[in-house]
């Protein structure tokens, strides 16, 4: 080996020294995007559920000055939504520039025709294909998969082909995120680490009528012994063990004998909460086998210490600093955000509407929780806006949608749950979130230069949801659906009591109606062709005649026949009829579950009081843009064509929209 002279030694030492001095400081920043400097920049604010009528009213009242300013620079129009106007469907129209016949998302739920069971329409998980079994242990030889079921290419993939950079924040119907080098973070459809849309845990010493497992949450009855509560936090199923048992973490809560305080100790975390206080994000790790664990993050809310102990734990979100499931592209994007902002809600729709519905939260607590969501979104938005220089920035906000769902009952005096006293407190909630979005728009407009095109859009609007229609009960009453035991009507879910050999049609999802087709359904009876065609037309016609016996109003304003309205490769997979409900009406919560209650229509007594799963003509979304639209009635899929047009990219053949400029 050559000897170093003194000068070389000093040089080498200094190099090594600076490596050591700098090496420990931080990992290199990974930034992914296209390279091209674009002459025009495009910012799109996707404000879920913003309603054109409300925007118009509030603009006229001077409460949305920046919306008005944007309109004066260009245009404000209702935006034609999807059929049905459900968020996963509508956002898929926007992502692909196609309608459901092209992208294959027809409803929140789809169904397995062979077994008549509901399936989540947006994503599916597949277990590892092969594994070695040693006693109780299962060692997978390959990884499991989560598959995005949406078909068609996303517009940011097309932009990537042309080297146009894009940041797509929380786009719904993009879980897991489709492969791309663009910066994307998955949105609606992203599950918690248990694989649910979001399952909260609630611990109480109070005796509750609620069952242990309620939709969207779990109730745990606990005991405070010697000012100490010991409980467990359920985690994901352990696929390394036979029969995939549920994993869990033990935790302890110490209560002060007098003061309204508690200390929570869970794994390495210990923290004190006052009554009525929220923790920040806490990291947890569910052990699977000695070398494997699943990380997650959650927040704790100490609702009450005495007389009854009440503790809420948020759904365990995928930890963005070490995602157990794919939530971003490139994977380092989520980690980069986590490094800058700490934990944040990664689940698709984080506002805990189920906790409010089941009375675990009151209205104020729900708003407090959703304010955390909104604040996180706004912090990341400021960051993304400040570094946006070229290409496209799409930014999504869910609070507009979630608050309208839950607080419509305070602006609709005809709603069965309208309460004038509470309306005086929460009646301005919806207005406030619109005003908040106006502030967001102001920030965006400040960033805008003459080469920036700014669009504000929503996937649909909103209307009251006052009355629930049991579509399967209507099918039964009209002889299209028959039961095995008529006396058991209303007792079973998932069509367990259905006599399929005498059933011609059934409804799953919120707007979907299927024909029990021979050769497709497991016990199908209706022959495809003329017989099916006639039946579809007959049911659609009859549905449009149905009237609410209480009000005399039509329940269904339009029953759309899928093959009349859809285009694309997947039309055959569509439900035969898409039910477009009239203003104030919607499918009951029993309908998507395959339940057949005895009555046809009933009051909606849920806090989920505003909705959009109706006739798409009743609830268009909004489009505000700082340029004039040449299209009189633009639709969601027109915006996709417009995005490509802004960057001079030719529209692919399968896209059905046209540029609005």
């Amino acid at each position: 080996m050559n000897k170093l002279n003194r000068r070389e030694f000093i040089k080498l030492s200094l190099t090594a020294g600076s490596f050591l001095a700098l090496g420990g400081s931080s990992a290199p920043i990974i930034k992914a995007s296209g390279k091209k400097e674009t002459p025009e920049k495009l910012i799109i604010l996707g404000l879920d559920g913003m309603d054109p009528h409300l925007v118009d009213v509030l603009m006229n009242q001077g409460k949305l000055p920046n919306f008005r300013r944007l309109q004066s620079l260009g245009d404000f129009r209702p935006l034609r939504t999807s059929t049905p106007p459900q968020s996963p469907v509508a956002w898929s129209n926007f992502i692909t520039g196609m309608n459901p016949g092209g992208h294959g998302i027809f409803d929140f739920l789809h169904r397995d025709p062979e077994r008549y069971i509901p399936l989540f329409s947006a994503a599916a998980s597949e277990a590892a294909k092969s594994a070695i079994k040693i006693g109780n242990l299962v060692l997978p030889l390959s990884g499991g998969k989560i598959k995005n079921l949406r078909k068609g290419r996303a517009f940011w993939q097309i932009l990537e082909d042309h080297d146009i950079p894009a940041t797509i924040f929380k786009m719904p119907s993009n879980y897991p995120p489709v492969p791309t080098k663009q910066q994307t973070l998955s949105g609606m459809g992203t599950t918690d680490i248990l694989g649910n849309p979001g399952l909260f845990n609630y611990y109480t010493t109070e005796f509750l009528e609620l069952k242990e497992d309620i939709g969207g949450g779990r109730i745990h009855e606990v005991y405070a012994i010697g000012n100490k509560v010991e409980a467990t936090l359920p985690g994901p199923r352990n696929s390394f063990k036979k029969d995939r048992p549920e994993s869990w973490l033990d935790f302890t809560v110490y209560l002060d004998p007098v003061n309204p305080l508690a200390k929570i100790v869970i794994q390495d975390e210990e923290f004190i909460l006052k009554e009525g206080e929220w923790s920040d994000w806490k990291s947890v790790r569910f052990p699977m086998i000695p070398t494997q664990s699943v990380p997650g993050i959650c927040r704790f809310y100490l609702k009450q210490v005495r007389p009854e102990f009440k503790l809420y734990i948020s759904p365990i979100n995928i930890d963005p600093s070490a995602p157990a499931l794919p939530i971003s592209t490139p994977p380092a994007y989520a980690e980069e955000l986590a490094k800058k902002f700490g934990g944040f809600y990664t689940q698709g729709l984080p506002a805990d509407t189920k906790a409010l519905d089941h009375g675990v939260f009151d209205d104020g607590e729900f708003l407090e929780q959703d304010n955390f969501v909104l604040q996180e979104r706004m912090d990341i938005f400021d960051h993304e806006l400040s570094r946006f220089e070229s290409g496209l920035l799409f930014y999504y906000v869910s609070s507009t949608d979630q608050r309208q769902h839950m607080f419509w009952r305070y602006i609709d005096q005809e709603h069965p749950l309208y309460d004038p006293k509470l309306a005086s407190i929460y009646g301005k909630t919806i207005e406030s979130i619109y005003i908040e979005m106006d502030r967001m728009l102001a920030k965006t407009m400040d960033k805008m230069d003459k080469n920036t095109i700014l669009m504000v859009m929503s996937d649909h609007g909103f209307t009251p949801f006052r009355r629930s229609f049991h579509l399967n009960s209507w099918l039964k009453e009209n002889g299209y659906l028959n039961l095995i035991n008529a006396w058991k009507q209303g007792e079973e879910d998932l069509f367990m009591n259905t006599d399929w050999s005498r059933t011609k049609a059934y409804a799953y999802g919120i707007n979907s109606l299927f024909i029990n087709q021979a050769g497709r359904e497991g016990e199908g009876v209706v022959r495809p062709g003329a017989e099916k065609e006639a039946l579809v037309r007959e049911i659609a016609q009859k549905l449009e005649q149905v009237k609410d016996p209480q009000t005399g109003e039509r329940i269904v304003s339009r029953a759309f026949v899928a093959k009349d309205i859809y285009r694309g490769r997947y039309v055959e997979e569509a439900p035969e009829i898409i039910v477009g409900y009239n203003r104030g009406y919607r499918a009951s919560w029993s309908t998507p579950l395959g339940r057949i209650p005895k009555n046809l229509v009933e009051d909606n007594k849920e806090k989920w009081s505003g909705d959009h799963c109706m006739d798409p003509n009743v609830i268009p979304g909004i489009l505000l843009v700082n340029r004039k639209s040449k299209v009189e009635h633009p639709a969601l899929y027109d915006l996709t064509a417009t995005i490509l047009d802004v960057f001079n990219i030719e529209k692919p053949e399968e896209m059905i929209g046209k540029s609005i400029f």
Partner: protein
Amino acid sequence: MWIFNSIFGKIFEIIFIPFRSLSPWVGMTLISLLTGLLMLLIFRYTSNQEGIRKVKNKIKAHLLELRLFKDSLALSLKAQGNIFRSNIKYIGYSGKPLLVMIVPLILILIQLNFWFAYQSLQPGEITILKVKVQEGQNILDLELKIEPPRSLAIETLPLRIEEQQEINWRLRAKEGGLHSLVFRINGQSFVKKVSVAQKPLSRISPLRVRRNFIDELFNPGEAPISKDIPVKSIEVKYPNKNMNLFGWHIHWIIVYFALSIIFGFALKGVLKVEI
């Protein structure tokens, strides 16, 4: 014990003074180098260097024998037996210096833990302050008062955990500095230091303990609490710190041993030490 801790602690402070604003890697490299040198010197003066040299040569010779006479089973077995015996002898020679090394090494590790295992609180950060009370004291009746400086805030009433004889508070750091939290109990007062926004290489003392040899040995950061005060310990929960190597978080003790061994082997020729 406290006098020893003060002096020993001061040595480390002096060693680290020039490097406190730099990445902890610099201080870690320096202390590992010094440790490597110290261990080599201990090894040199406490071990039988001549004996080690001889036994190592013997092992080499027997290894050669193994290679040369690999066709002869009897000779191969005999060589293996001799290698085994020489190894035992080598371990015997290394035992003495290792026993001598272990005491200074433990003392060094205790000190380094306070420099490399914790990071100071950041302004706005919250943590838990814990006071463990002597057995036999009723924590519900205890008149324990805290006087925080303006740079720290006690955010909660006391949370008393009887089964652990412990009182907890939530503490929020507001401004940078090495702050003193004053506790008053039965007319007496004592202090716990709280580190906020300190330099990258700083000594952090999470626990102040009551006068007791073992407790003081392992918690040398602050003077012990007087035996007249019915408090066993005061603890500030600091976040743990790891050595960050391009995004890899490695426990400081692994880095320390790895670097010390590397330096030891690199310098054994220079110092003419037979290991």
